[in-house]
Structures are given as C-alpha cells and as structure tokens.
C-alpha cells in the first residue's frame, strides 16, 4: 500500500515575483495571474495577512499599522470623491 513516486502530485511551481520578470515577458506573466473572483479575493487576503504578520501580530507593535491604514483610507477616499471635490477646489466663494 502507499503511493508510488509517480502517483504523488508535483507541488505547484512558484511563479517569479513581478520585479524579477523581464519587461518583454510582463504580458505573459499578467496572463498567468488568476483573475477569477476567488483569485482576486485570495490575492487581497494574502496581502492583508502579509501586512498583519509584519506590523500587527508582533509582540510589541505600535501605532504604525493603524496610522498607515487610516492614511491609506483617507487617500483612497480622496481619489474616490475627486469628481465631487474638483468643482470646489479653485472656487473663490464656497
């Protein structure tokens, strides 16, 4: 009983990180990405876990992760509401 060497599935090959990919091969690299809804969800989840493991789940963390999250949220809110805000920007009388 037991599996022979030919029956054991090979582990999935790790793809190159983006900064190691040559410029000409970038479109092929992008084509290999998983852009299904689950793929996008797990990509965000991996990024979130990487951030948390680096800044939050440490013995003696600080305010840095929360400050970064809030700053990022303010910047994204600005970009989100730019169309609404641009009419007010150069007005003399509000």
């Amino acid at each position, binding site marked *: 009983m037991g599996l022979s060497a030919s029956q054991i599935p090979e582990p999935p090959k790790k793809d190159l990180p983006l900064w190691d990919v040559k410029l000409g091969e970038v479109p092929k690299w992008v084509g290999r990405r998983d852009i299904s809804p689950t793929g996008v969800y797990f990509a965000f989840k991996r990024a979130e876990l990487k951030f948390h493991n680096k800044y*939050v*789940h440490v013995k003696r963390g600080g305010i840095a*992760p929360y400050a970064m999250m*809030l700053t990022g*949220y303010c910047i994204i809110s600005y970009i*989100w509401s730019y169309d609404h805000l641009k009419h007010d920007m150069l007005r003399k009388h509000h």
Partner: protein
Amino acid sequence: MVVSLFSQFDSPWLFSIPLVVLALLVPWKLFVSSGASWAGTRSSVLLESLLGMLMNQVMQPLSKKGFNWVVLLSSLMLMLMTLNVIGLFPYTFTPTTQLSMNLGLAVPLWLATVVYGFRNHPTVALAHLCPEGAPNLLIPVLVVVETLSILMRPLALGLRLTANLTAGHLLMHLISSAVLGLMELSVVLSGITLFLLVFLTMLEIAVALIQGYVFAILVTLYLDENL
C-alpha cells in the same frame, strides 16, 4: 453647478461603487483580531481591554437574562463609535450621517426588544403601558401616551445620531470656510476663528464617541424593560 452645504453628505461613486461601501468596511478591517499567538501581542491585548470596557458598559443595565445580547450590543457600540470618529478624518465619508442607515439600525433593534417582550411575557409587556399608581380616569390617556412614546423610540434613536453628526460636520465645514474667507480680510480674526475650530473639533470627537455610546445604551435600556 451649484454646490450646496449639504453636498458633503453625498456618497460619491467610483466604478459604480459608492464610497459608503468602503466606509462601512473600516470598523471591520481596522480592528485586527489576534493572530495565532497564545501569549497575546500588544495590539490584541489593547483590543481585548477595549472590548472588555465596552462589554462592561453594556452589561451594567442588563440583568443576567440579557447577557446573551451583550456581544451584539457592544459590537454595535464599537462600530458606531468607529464610524463616527473615522468620519472626522479629511475626505472620508460618515455613513452615520445618513438617516437611512441609522433608522436601518434603530428600527430592527427596537422592534426586536418589543417583540421579545411581547412574546415571552405579553401581560407584563402590556402592563408597562400603564404606570403604577396612576389615577383611574387618566389610565386611557396614559396608555395612549405610553404607546406613542414606545412607537417614537426608533425614530428618536435614528434621528438623534443623524442630527448630531450632520450638525457637527456642517459647523466644521462652515467655520473652516470662514477661516479661509477671513484670511484675506484679517489674519487676527482668522486666527481666532481657527482657535475656535480647534475646540470645535475636540467637541466633535467627544460627540462622535458619546453618540455611539448613547445609541447602544438606549437599546440596552429598552431591552432591559422587556426582559
């Protein structure tokens, strides 16, 4: 294009998604639950102590029967406080300035407490409509008044939160516009108005925290009446 004072309360859209969706995700993502460390990290200990404080506040008015509701009510308190305070940051959107959202929170919670009371002990719940020791002639009037006051509760809950936050944001908007406008005329006046704006901002932070607390505590009190 006429931009009114109240246009700051519109939820802007990007790629067919309103900003309110992102704003509602903030309390969920900002408080990170503890990782796989049994000893506890600094952030998890701080978060647990904050949650413990909030749960104590919610448990105080409740009898033992109501402790099933503590998790719901304390998470409601934390969510409202967070949404209100984060809304004071620049360019962010405050979902609790929208009456639709506040009524959407107030009506189901209030209705749950009323239905809970009427389902478990209908006689006692009906008896609450007539205060003890009331003169016999006044009883019909008092029952009507008590019924109306119970029906007004969700409206008051939702409107209180909306009005406080909307008024605060409007005042900050107006006074900051006044500071900018006065800069050309008189720097001293502009400085005094800026000084006032600093104090107003501190007041708004306090109001944001208090209004979240009041909303949850009132729901707790309505629940305690019906337990």
